[in-house]
C-alpha cells in the first residue's frame, strides 16, 4: 500500500504540532531528569467577545465570539550558556485549508549568555519597546482585554502608521546589572526593520538598518522606569513598486513607568514619534496610556485605563481617546475572566472614528500555563 502525503496536508502548523507534541511526549515519558530539565513547555490561549453598545461606531454590532489565539512557548536549554526560545501562534481558529485565521512564529531565537550583563540573540524577535509590545499577544500577562490601541495600534485609532513594528529579524545585545541595589536592564536590537515589498524577516529592501533600544531601571522594588527608541529608514516606492532611492525617516521615543505599592498599581506610557518623507512635510504624533488598578485578595482586580492619540499635530480635531473600566478575575490558577467597558471619543478629522463617539463591551477568558 502506498501512502501519499501532499504538501497541502503537511502544513506548517501541522508540522509544528507534531514537533511540539513529540517533545511533550518525550518529556512525559523521560526517565532522565537532566534531559527533561532542559525543555520547558508553556503557553496561553485567549477567547474574546466584543459588542457595540451604541447605535453606531467602529465596533462589532453583532456581538461576536473570537477564538483569538493559542500560543505554545518552548524553551530549550541547549547548553549552560545557550537557550533557545520560540512562541508559535494559531490565531482566530486557524484553518489553513479554508484560508481562515493565521499561524505565525511570534519569535524564535537562540540566546547566548556571555555574562548576565552581556547576552546575544539572533532571529525573529519582538521589538523591545515600551511596556506592552513584548507581551501584546500574551493576554494572561496584562489586566485589560487588549493592549492599549493608542500606543500599540495607533493605525486602528486614527493614526496613519505605527510608532514601531511588532517584530523584527536581526541581532540583539542585551543584559542586566545592578548598581547600589538599582537594577538596570538594556536591550539594543539591529534589524531589517519593517517593509511591505519584501518579507522583512527574510530580506532587507534597503541598506539602512532599523535600531531599537530600551533601558529599564528599577530604583526600588515597586518602581520600574523605562525609555525606548526606534528608528528606521523606509524605502519609498514608485507606482510599480520599485525603489525610488528616496527614504522616509521614522523615529519614535517612549518613556514609561510602572509602580506598585501593596495592592495598588499604576502604569503610564508616553510616546512621541515622527515620519519624515523625502517629498512631504514632517508628520509628528504622540500618544499616551495610563492605568490605575487595585488588587482585592489576589482574585479581583478592578482597573481604569485612559488612552489618547494625536495622529498628526498639524491637524486640528483629529485626536481620539478611550476610557476603559474593567474587572479582571482570576477564576483558577492563571485562568482569568476579563470584563471591560470602553467609551471612545474622537474629533471629526480622526481617520478611524470620524467624530462618532460610542461605547462597547468586551470580555475575554484567558489561560496561561
Amino acid at each position: 500500500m502506498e501512502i501519499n502525503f501532499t504538501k497541502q496536508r503537511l502544513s506548517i502548523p501541522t508540522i509544528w504540532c507534531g514537533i511540539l507534541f513529540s517533545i511533550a511526549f518525550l518529556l512525559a515519558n523521560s526517565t532522565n531528569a537532566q534531559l527533561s530539565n532542559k525543555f520547558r513547555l508553556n503557553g496561553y490561549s485567549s477567547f474574546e467577545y466584543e459588542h457595540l453598545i451604541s447605535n453606531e461606531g467602529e465596533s462589532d454590532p453583532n456581538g461576536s465570539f473570537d477564538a483569538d489565539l493559542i500560543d505554545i512557548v518552548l524553551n530549550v536549554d541547549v547548553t549552560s550558556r545557550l537557550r533557545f526560545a520560540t512562541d508559535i501562534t494559531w490565531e482566530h481558529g486557524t484553518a489553513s485549508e479554508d484560508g481562515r485565521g493565521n499561524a505565525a512564529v511570534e519569535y524564535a531565537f537562540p540566546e547566548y549568555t556571555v555574562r548576565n550583563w552581556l547576552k546575544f540573540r539572533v532571529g525573529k524577535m519582538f521589538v523591545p519597546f515600551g511596556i506592552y509590545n513584548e507581551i501584546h499577544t500574551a493576554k494572561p500577562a496584562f489586566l485589560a482585554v487588549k493592549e492599549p490601541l493608542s500606543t500599540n495600534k495607533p493605525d486602528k485609532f486614527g493614526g496613519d502608521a505605527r510608532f514601531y513594528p511588532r517584530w523584527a529579524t536581526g541581532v540583539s545585545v542585551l543584559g542586566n546589572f545592578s548598581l547600589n541595589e538599582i537594577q538596570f536592564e538594556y536591550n539594543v536590537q539591529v534589524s531589517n526593520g519593517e517593509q511591505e515589498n519584501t518579507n522583512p524577516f527574510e530580506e532587507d529592501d534597503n541598506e539602512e538598518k532599523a535600531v531599537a533600544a530600551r533601558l529599564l531601571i528599577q530604583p526600588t522594588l515597586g518602581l520600574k522606569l523605562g525609555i525606548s527608541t526606534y528608528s528606521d529608514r523606509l524605502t519609498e516606492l514608485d507606482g510599480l513598486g520599485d525603489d525610488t532611492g528616496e527614504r522616509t525617516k521614522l523615529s519614535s521615543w517612549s518613556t514609561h513607568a510602572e509602580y506598585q505599592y501593596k495592592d495598588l498599581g499604576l502604569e503610564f506610557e508616553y510616546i512621541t514619534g515622527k515620519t519624515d518623507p523625502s517629498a512631504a512635510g514632517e508628520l509628528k504624533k504622540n500618544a499616551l496610556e495610563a492605568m490605575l488598578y487595585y488588587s482585592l485578595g489576589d482574585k479581583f482586580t478592578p482597573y481604569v485605563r485612559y488612552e489618547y492619540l494625536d495622529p498628526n499635530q498639524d491637524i486640528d480635531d483629529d485626536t481620539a481617546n478611550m476610557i476603559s473600566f474593567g474587572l479582571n478575575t482570576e477564576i483558577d490558577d492563571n485562568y482569568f475572566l476579563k470584563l471591560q467597558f470602553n467609551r471612545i471619543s474622537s474629533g471629526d478629522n480622526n481617520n478611524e472614528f470620524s467624530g462618532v463617539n460610542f461605547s462597547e463591551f468586551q470580555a475575554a477568558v484567558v489561560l496561561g500555563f
Partner: protein
Amino acid sequence: MKNIKYYISILLLVALAWLPNTAQAQDGFVVIVNKNVDETTLSKSSIRRIYFGFTTQWKNFDRVKPSYTEVSNAAFWNYISTEKGKFKSFWTKKVFSGNGVAPDEFNDGQGVIDFVSSTDGAIGIIPSSAQNNIGDCKIVTLQ
C-alpha cells in the same frame, strides 16, 4: 577547679551543639544548591536576583536553575520582598515575552531536594524541617 573546667567544657559543647544555625536557616527555610555549584554564601539581593531571573549564571558558568516549594512560600516571599501573586505575574510576563524560564515549583521539600540533587546548577528553597535529609545537596550560608 579541675571539676569546674570540666563542667564548663561540657556546657560549652552542649551549647554549641544546640546553637541555632542562623546563618543557614532564615525564617523557616533553607537554601540548598547542587553539589557542583561553587557558591557557598549568597546575599539576600543575590537570592532575589536569582529568583527574578536576572542572575542566570553561576561563577562556573553553569545555568542557574531555581526551584521552590509551596510549603516554604510565606517566609520566602517575605525574604525576597514580594508576594506570590506578584511573583507569578512577574514570571508570566517574563516567560511569554521570551525573556526567561520560570523557577520550578514543587509540592514539597523532597521534590525540591530531588530536583536540586539531580540538576546541574540547581538551587532550591526548602522548609527548615527538611534540611536533615538533603542527600548530596549543599546548604548555602545566607549573608
